[in-house]
């Protein structure tokens, strides 16, 4: 027994016009200052005004949003009493919107109580609409919330199926002007979701379909979108790929590239997509070496998504790893943590913390084989130095 969770999707050119059709009285937009400067808050507000919906904006979401920030947003939202909450931005804004929704709907509960094991009866006071402005996070369709515990320098992973958006608006107008580096890092995040979602122990026939399609779309479109930002076909395909990958891994689970990426991101404050993307080929090599099942799955994914014709599973899975590294390189993404301007001294100083946080990450427990702390030490050393694990 398992569930498939997904919001209503409104996608394609002009999808944001959907806001002119919705019913409500007060909308609370959770976003950041960059979205205001880019004019995206104005676009959304104007659409809402056509529906005669009053708007209040909370623009204080920072990259790697903290628990303190979302609690502040939750207080302001609770005073405002909206019947619509809109997350507008990348994963940080959309995850913050989920957390703020929870605080507003459940004022007597602690944010840390948000758990997939408890029923909360959310979405009683308001609807949640997510509008991604980058193409990678998948947060518009997932039911996880990633916040940063500033004090303990680690990511706090919260989750509940009930926190998933009612509607996700996937309009290519928003990512159209992303700079190449942001296009690359978010696109690599989508690829990592697709590949890890395909080999998760919670994979299922529905998530498989999403992960295969997303992998194919990323390989066909990411390099084009990075090198020619005005290629709107590639942009739109990547925007859809990110959401499709979100549906894939969101209904199975991410894996240890995310455990490693969460840990590095929380300690060194680097772009999430590159943090997980650097780890991706190394964790694939680790899993291929450690057990037969992942090897078969990587080989199958390569055959289905990229038409790899090799029949031998080990050879086919190695080809997929090689193609991942080639895509990282072609998009200008780093191939090691050292390339992300993390010094050897800083990395060594924080090594034990980074390993311990990855080991405790909930994405670790849904990976098979489940790595030990010693395995994580080897993986981090390899990923820092950029030395492939021998296959």
């Amino acid at each position, binding site marked *: *027994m*398992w*569930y498939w969770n997904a919001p209503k999707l409104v996608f394609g050119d002009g999808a944001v016009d959907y806001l002119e059709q919705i019913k409500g009285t007060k909308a609370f937009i959770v976003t950041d200052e960059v979205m205001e400067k880019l004019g995206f808050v104005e676009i959304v507000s104007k659409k809402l005004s056509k529906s005669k919906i009053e708007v209040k904006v909370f623009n204080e979401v920072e990259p790697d949003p903290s628990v303190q920030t979302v609690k502040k947003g939750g207080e302001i939202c609770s005073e405002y009493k909206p019947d619509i909450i809109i997350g507008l931005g990348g994963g940080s804004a959309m995850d913050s919107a989920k957390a703020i929704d929870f605080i507003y709907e459940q004022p007597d509960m*602690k944010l*840390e*109580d*948000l*758990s*997939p*094991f*408890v029923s909360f009866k959310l979405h009683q006071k308001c609807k949640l609409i997510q509008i991604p402005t980058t193409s990678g996070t998948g947060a518009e369709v997932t039911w996880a919330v990633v916040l940063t515990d500033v004090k303990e320098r680690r990511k706090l*992973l*919260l*989750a509940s*199926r009930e926190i998933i958006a009612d509607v996700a608006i996937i309009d290519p107008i928003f990512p159209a002007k992303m700079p190449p580096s942001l296009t690359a890092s978010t696109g690599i995040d989508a690829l990592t979701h697709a590949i890890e979602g395909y080999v998760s*122990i*919670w994979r299922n026939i529905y998530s498989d379909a999403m992960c295969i399609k997303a992998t194919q779309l990323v390989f066909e479109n990411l390099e084009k979108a990075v090198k020619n930002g005005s290629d709107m076909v590639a942009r739109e395909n990547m925007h859809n790929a990110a959401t499709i990958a979100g549906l894939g891994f969101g209904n199975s689970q991410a894996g240890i590239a995310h455990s490693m990426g969460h840990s590095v991101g929380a300690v060194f404050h680097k772009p999430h997509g590159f943090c997980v993307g650097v780890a991706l080929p190394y964790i694939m090599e680790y899993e291929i070496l450690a057990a037969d099942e992942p090897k078969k799955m990587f080989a199958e994914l390569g055959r289905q998504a990229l038409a790899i014709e090799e029949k031998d599973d080990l050879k086919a899975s190695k080809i997929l790893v090689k193609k991942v590294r080639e895509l990282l390189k072609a998009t200008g993404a780093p191939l090691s943590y050292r390339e992300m301007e993390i010094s050897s001294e800083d990395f060594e100083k924080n090594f034990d913390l980074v390993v311990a946080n990855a*080991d*405790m990450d*909930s994405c*670790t*427990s*849904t990976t098979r084989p*489940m790595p*030990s*702390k010693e395995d994580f030490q080897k993986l981090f050393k390899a990923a820092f130095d950029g030395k492939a694990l021998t296959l």
Partner: protein
Amino acid sequence: MVKFGSEEWGKQFCQKLNESEAYNKAAETWEGDFVFVMEFEDGTKEVRLYVDLWHGKCRGTAIVGSDKEAEFIMSGSYSNWVKVAKKELDPIQGLMTGKFKLEGDMAKIMRATKAAVELVNCVTEVENVEF
């Protein structure tokens, strides 16, 4: 043969936990006790197994009454517990689909999912079990 969920089964489970290097390491900072409640389908009775877990070790188990308090209480039908013991049901998936209920500090348990997996691995390692 040892009856699943019995006092003797609890002792053997405890021994498996203490022998497991993987559990010892994964739960080295864990402090908290559990009561595992196995509910029989006819609703007439239940088994409540108390497990005292501390820093990667099991300090003891006992069959207890409903008045015994613990930091975490995990409840499910006897048949679903049997599925977990036979590796037919992932207990975390079981919790997420309502087949098990968990009471306790959710934030604490979410930080210890690796230890939970190793704990369940030890459930499946108890040998010669009669279900």
